[in-house]
């Protein structure tokens, strides 16, 4: 049967067909749907782990226990999982183990544009890179046999365009992979210096063996079109190149991007007069070719930053671009915004009003940095809001402590914010941490997490008690606020900033997009009362606009959260039936 699958769904299908039994991941765009789709197969145990390091270690443990396993994450998640990654390279596997990592060239939904191929080189691990959904399924399966054949974790590298594009996949049945027996072997699995030293030599030899395998494997393919021009490409970039150049050039299409097949590269060089290495982000293949003494074009022609497309390649290679037309008007940008009824909106409005320094974090609430709320000073990485606030306050002293907060979502707090809070309690900075508890992992599209009380499969489970957790690490002042109640939020913030000890404010209200959240009827502006002062526009709600001197609420968008009503000096915004005609 043929299906139109997302690259991520196709990876999950590959896991199913390869007999994978355990998947542990932390959500992150563009990798999230791998685990969501895998969770739909009853045969696969799936979980959302608190963070990527835990996920990788769970997968490693499952591999040791004899089950084929996978952990999936976005590119920056691999930074978090890098510690186990590098040493698992030495240990290898029992049953096959795969890291699926999705890079985000073009930063569709990320804080940086790092290239995960550098991790494959650094950790000396084989890395496969599929170019469409059919390859996502095939390479996911291949990764497990490769992992077991060469006794190594394998990295499956995706990019946004492959993860989030649908293409046709011919489904195949599952092949059960029996649970392998565990055998105690400290020299393989206990990485003490005495055992790790010899293992390093094994890893170096393994890389050479893998390089030999890469020369003849099916996924590295020389497409000789008799041209004097050769192109080396992998992943989505290969598709763009085929789109622009068709059969007018010869290709080395790489399915394995580490280690590289040096003989195949030499063969392409021998058959052509000039080679273009077309790769997004870092010049990884290009530099390797140059070290081999093969002159190639690469970043002298193509950009180092951003996502490629057929137009980028055409432009860089001097090809004609199709004609296009445009209106002369300036089109205002349409940046992403917090949704109508978003519980974060009231928090950022209050923070802006109080003119505090806001140490920010990763999630929907990072949108609090955008106008008109503009209430965020920093955003570094998962969990950094809390620890960086502690450092900021250690630098600034009381002057900083009275005018600064950290904001962090429930899922991010569990991921790596709690360690920063322990530092605040242990090393005593008088910091205020606002936990934005919307009862879900929001930005990545509603995943359960350890605070929600449900597993990835929707089964009830224990939930982290955030108040008790904060108290347990040594924070005595912990309070809960409803972010729709701007007055209560404002006084809580003022009190905690004044307090002479660290504190946590938990802003608690579920994400307005959750299915179980009931919406109120849309609000209306009484045009007779509205004086056009625009106070209501200050909260940046996409449902409120300004037309002909008056505020207007869009009834198709408004969910009746009521946060705007308190801002109107004339009480002009309210429920339709409450307003006297």
């Amino acid at each position: 049967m043929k299906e139109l699958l997302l690259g991520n769904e196709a990876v999950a299908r590959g896991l199913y067909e390869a007999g994978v039994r355990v998947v542990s991941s932390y959500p992150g765009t563009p990798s999230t749907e791998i685990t969501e789709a895998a969770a739909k197969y009853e045969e696969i145990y799936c979980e959302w782990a608190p963070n990527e390091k835990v996920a990788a270690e769970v997968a490693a443990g499952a591999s040791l226990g004899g089950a084929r396993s996978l952990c999936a994450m976005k590119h920056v998640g691999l930074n978090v999982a890098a510690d186990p990654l590098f040493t698992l390279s030495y240990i290898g596997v029992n049953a096959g183990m795969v890291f699926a990592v999705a890079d985000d060239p073009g930063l569709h939904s990320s804080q940086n544009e790092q290239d995960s191929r550098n991790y494959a080189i650094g950790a000396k691990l084989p890395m496969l890179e599929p170019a469409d959904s059919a390859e996502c399924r095939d390479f996911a399966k291949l990764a497990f046999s490769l992992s077991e054949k060469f006794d190594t974790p394998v990295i499956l590298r995706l990019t946004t365009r492959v993860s989030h594009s649908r293409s046709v996949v011919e489904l195949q049945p599952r092949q059960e992979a029996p649970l392998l027996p565990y055998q105690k072997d400290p020299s393989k699995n206990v990485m003490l210096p005495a055992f790790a030293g010899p293992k390093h030599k094994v890893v170096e030899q393994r890389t050479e063996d893998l390089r030999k395998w890469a020369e003849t494997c099916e996924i590295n393919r020389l497409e000789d079109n008799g041209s004097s021009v050769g192109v080396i490409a992998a992943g989505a970039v290969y598709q763009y190149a085929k789109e622009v150049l068709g059969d007018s050039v010869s290709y080395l299409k790489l399915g394995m991007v580490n280690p590289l097949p040096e003989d195949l590269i030499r063969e392409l060089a021998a058959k052509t007069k000039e080679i273009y290495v077309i790769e997004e982000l870092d010049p990884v293949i290009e530099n390797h070719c140059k070290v081999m003494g093969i002159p190639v074009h690469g970043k002298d022609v193509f950009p180092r930053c951003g996502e490629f497309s057929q137009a980028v390649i055409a432009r860089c290679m001097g090809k004609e671009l199709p004609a296009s037309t445009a209106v002369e008007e300036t089109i205002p940008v349409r940046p992403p915004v917090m949704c109508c009824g978003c519980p974060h909106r009231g928090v950022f409005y209050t923070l802006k009003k109080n003119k505090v320094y806001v140490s920010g974090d990763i999630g929907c609430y990072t949108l609090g940095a955008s106008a008109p709320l503009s209430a965020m000073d920093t955003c570094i990485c998962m969990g950094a809001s809390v620890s960086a606030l502690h450092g900021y306050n250690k630098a600034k002293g009381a002057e900083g402590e009275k005018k600064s907060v950290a904001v962090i979502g429930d899922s991010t707090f569990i991921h790596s914010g709690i360690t920063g809070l322990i530092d605040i309690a242990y090393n005593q900075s008088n910091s205020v941490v606002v936990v934005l508890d919307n009862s879900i992992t929001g930005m990545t599209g509603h995943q359960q997490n350890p605070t929600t009380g449900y597993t990835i499969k929707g089964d009830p489970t224990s939930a982290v008690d955030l108040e008790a957790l904060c108290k347990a690490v040594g924070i005595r002042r912990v309070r809960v606020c409803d972010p729709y109640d701007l007055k209560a939020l404002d006084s809580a913030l003022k009190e905690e900033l004044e307090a002479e000890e660290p504190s946590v404010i938990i802003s608690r209200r579920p994400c307005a997009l959750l299915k179980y959240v009931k919406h109120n009827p849309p609000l209306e502006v009484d045009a007779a009362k509205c004086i056009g002062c625009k106070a209501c526009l200050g909260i940046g709600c996409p449902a409120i606009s300004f037309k002909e001197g008056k505020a207007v609420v869009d009834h198709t968008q408004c969910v009746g959260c009521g946060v705007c009503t308190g801002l109107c000096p004339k009480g002009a915004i309210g429920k339709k039936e409450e307003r006297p005609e």
Partner: protein
Amino acid sequence: MSEKGKNAVKSVMIVGVGGQGTLLASRVLGSAMLQKGVDVKVSEVHGMSQRGGSVVTYVRYGETPEDRVYSPVIERGEADVLLAFEALEAARFLPYLKKGGTVVVNTQQMDPMPVITGAAQYPRDILEKVKEQGVHVLALDALALAEKAGSAKAVNVVLIGAMAQHLSLPREVWEETIRSTVPEKFINMNLQAFELGFTTGV
């Protein structure tokens, strides 16, 4: 292959505001093409861009079963059809339309945040300006038609109906795809929305 061995691929670009249901439209179109038996790729947008921002999905499919789709994305001057869920977005992505291409556009206007905050203005008569560029424009009030069908949320299916008039697929394939894509209790409402869009889209 269609002509002289050249790979013949049709490109449909679907643009709108995050939350309007552009993803469903691209999935319905993609599934319909899969049923037709041609190669097809759909490129979606997930994550941060979905939160009320400008969103783009691409659908590309072969004209015949022999045609291969390589790139999943559409670049400037390449789209045969631009399906816009909002007027400003039609203007924003007009450069992606091929010469002689068709714009199917919802006349609904939604202010982006810079307009709401007063930092920018929503251009006046924007669809008139689009029409002046010498492209085929089919403009319809999809929101009104969706509300007529029973829900403002059916804007996407109204627009699928309007677009269907411009793509060579039997009507039954569309209806079958909608049946298999939307939740059961909303099937009739969505078929009604499709009908309203389809008859307006002539």
